[in-house]
């Protein structure tokens, strides 16, 4: 028996209607029923069909551009699979979208730090990657892989992809390198720059910077009152809390602000564009790694194929150069070329011992309380 497609089915139905074999009401009723049935069945059909598309969500701006140009376009060309890329302003925002979505709607997310990996896993979004399908994972810095696997009992739900720091960015026309080095994170609460200071509207970064300003260990804060006072001090001097990397770059480039904490890669991108922006990592500066997290319910083999492609040295290095963050590839195993060793935060040893990462258990344990308090402090309380 030959299968009838929907167009033929509709044409036959219409013919019967035109011939007077069907009443108008019956014709419209059948059309409506067909539409409803199609709508109900389509999501389940999609699960059973061959995967032709993978959804990726990331940070937008130069990061997305680099991924699109050096990873997704070549991947699509090589495999015929489509990568649909979306953007978000932060992993909290993406988590909210994920919460409202259907399983399989979102597949891979470019998440920050181990704390996001832990948080997403705690909320039940962890998948289980088959490492055999991602041979290029062997080329990654072991420390970056292990720290993820440890949290999910040896299983992996993500692959590390890049790392960087959140340091202090400053306009060299107004702040010298010496002054920045001397003052470090205290530049963000320097009265001399009132109205020319910026900051990310994210509780974790604000608390981290306040810990540096009050001389505390960011992973073991003892005096929270002092932290909130420092956050308030920064708020009162700040012109604007930025909410995305693109806004950060615009504020610095347009000289709306002279100093802010910033992501290393974004500052490097500004420097490459010819802006005289300095960057320094204060002692205990905020180090982070980013991973490609595969969300539970995603087509695993297709995602693994994409991740393996993205981790191949050729792709990974090209993306890293494009987005200005060092790749997760181990420099002891892979020749990373000339440009990557010049990027801020790059560690030639591959041990990453010079970076301070956020302790996921500590920060996630305070997330509910501190994010809410920051929301109030941010608005003048």
């Amino acid at each position, binding site marked *: 028996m030959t299968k009838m497609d929907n167009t033929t089915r509709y044409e036959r139905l219409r013919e019967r209607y035109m011939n007077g074999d069907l009443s108008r009401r019956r014709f419209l009723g059948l059309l409506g029923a067909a539409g409803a049935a199609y709508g109900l069945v389509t999501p389940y059909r999609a699960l059973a069909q061959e995967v032709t598309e993978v959804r990726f969500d990331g940070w937008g701006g130069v990061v997305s551009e680099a991924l699109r140009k050096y990873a997704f376009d070549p991947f699509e060309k090589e495999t015929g699979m489509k990568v649909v890329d979306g953007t978000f302003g932060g992993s*909290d925002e993406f988590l909210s979208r994920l*919460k409202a979505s259907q399983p399989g709607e979102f597949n891979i997310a470019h998440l920050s730090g181990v704390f996001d990996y832990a948080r997403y896993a705690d909320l039940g979004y962890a998948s289980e990657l088959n490492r055999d399908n991602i041979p290029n994972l062997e080329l990654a810095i072991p420390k970056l892989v292990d720290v993820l696997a440890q949290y999910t009992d040896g299983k992996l739900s993500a692959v590390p992809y890049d790392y960087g720091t959140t340091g202090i960015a400053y306009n060299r026309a107004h702040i010298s390198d010496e002054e920045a080095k001397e003052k470090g994170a205290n530049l963000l609460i320097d009265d001399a720059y009132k109205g020319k200071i910026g900051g990310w509207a994210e509780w974790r970064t604000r608390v981290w910077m306040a810990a540096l300003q009050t001389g505390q260990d960011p992973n073991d804060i003892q005096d929270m009152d002092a932290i909130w006072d420092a956050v308030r001090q920064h708020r009162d001097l700040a*012109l604007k809390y930025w909410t995305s990397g693109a806004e950060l770059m615009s504020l610095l480039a*347009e000289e709306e602000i002279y100093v802010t904490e910033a992501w290393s890669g974004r500052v490097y991108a500004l420097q490459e564009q010819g802006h005289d922006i300095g960057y320094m990592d204060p002692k205990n500066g905020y180090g982070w790694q980013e991973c490609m997290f595969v969300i539970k319910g995603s087509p695993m083999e297709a995602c693994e194929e994409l991740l393996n492609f993205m981790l191949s040295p050729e792709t990974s290095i090209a993306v890293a150069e494009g987005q200005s963050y060092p790749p997760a590839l181990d420099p002891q195993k892979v020749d990373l070329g000339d440009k990557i060793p010049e990027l801020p935060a790059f560690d030639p040893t591959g041990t990453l011992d010079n970076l301070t990462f956020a302790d996921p258990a500590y920060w996630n344990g305070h997330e509910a309380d501190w994010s*809410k308090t920051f929301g109030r402090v941010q608005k003048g309380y």
Partner: protein
Amino acid sequence: MSVEARERRQPWILLSPALTAITLLLFIPLVFIAVYSFWLRTATGADQVGFFLDNWQEALTDRFYRDILLYTLKIAAITTILCAVMGYPAAYFIARSKGNKAILLLLLMLPFWISYIIRTMSWINILGVSGALNTFLLWIGIIDEPLQMLYNQATVVLGLIHFLLPFMVLNVFVSLDGIDETLEDAANSLGATRWQAFLQVTLPLSLPGLAAGGLLCFVLGAGTYITPLVLGGPSDAMFANLVFEAIITQLNWPLGSALSLMLLVVLGLLVMVYNRYLGMAQLMKGLG
């Protein structure tokens, strides 16, 4: 079926697509939000299903939310008054113009063809340190240093006016356009000056349009979160920003639901007061 029965059914048949859409897209989501507002957010970010009054207690008793709500209403009121002051003369001019009314109305509608976010962000290019206005002022030598004009309460109000002014002008225009112009002539012939005729005849007759425009501006202004986010400074958040933060940043959907319902109730009360004294018919005319 009798003719009477058919006539009784006909309005419901015609209304059924709209009623279905309203039920599916407004009423049912609202019920979900109401149910959500009684749940709790756990420390991990997951929701605890149940009937808890904690979110409502927090939303109603915490000074933080009350203050931001009052600030939001204040900004919406300032914006509405300024829209009325600026919008009335524009609407009057359009209503009384003879040959080019259609072109003027088209010009009034033009901003709606551009995204609200793009329109809001355009102020960054105008008022920024390297924006058009500073560049011009520096060029003509009035200032030596760029002025810091962005990211404060004034720019939030400016952005809101930019967004809401056409709504005010349209509503007032509809009202003025329906007034018989000979009434002013009659007042003049009875000895009133043009100003007196306007104050005692035209203005009172156009008040329903002004009120409808005011209501729209106020409700839309009080519910916005894009403008303070893009053009506001650290302390310029409005109530909708709290809802956004609770739901998106803090993943606290139950509290966010309670806050959004709280704003809905406050603005709903305002609409009810308006409807009680002026009726919704004028608003429909303005929107149409």
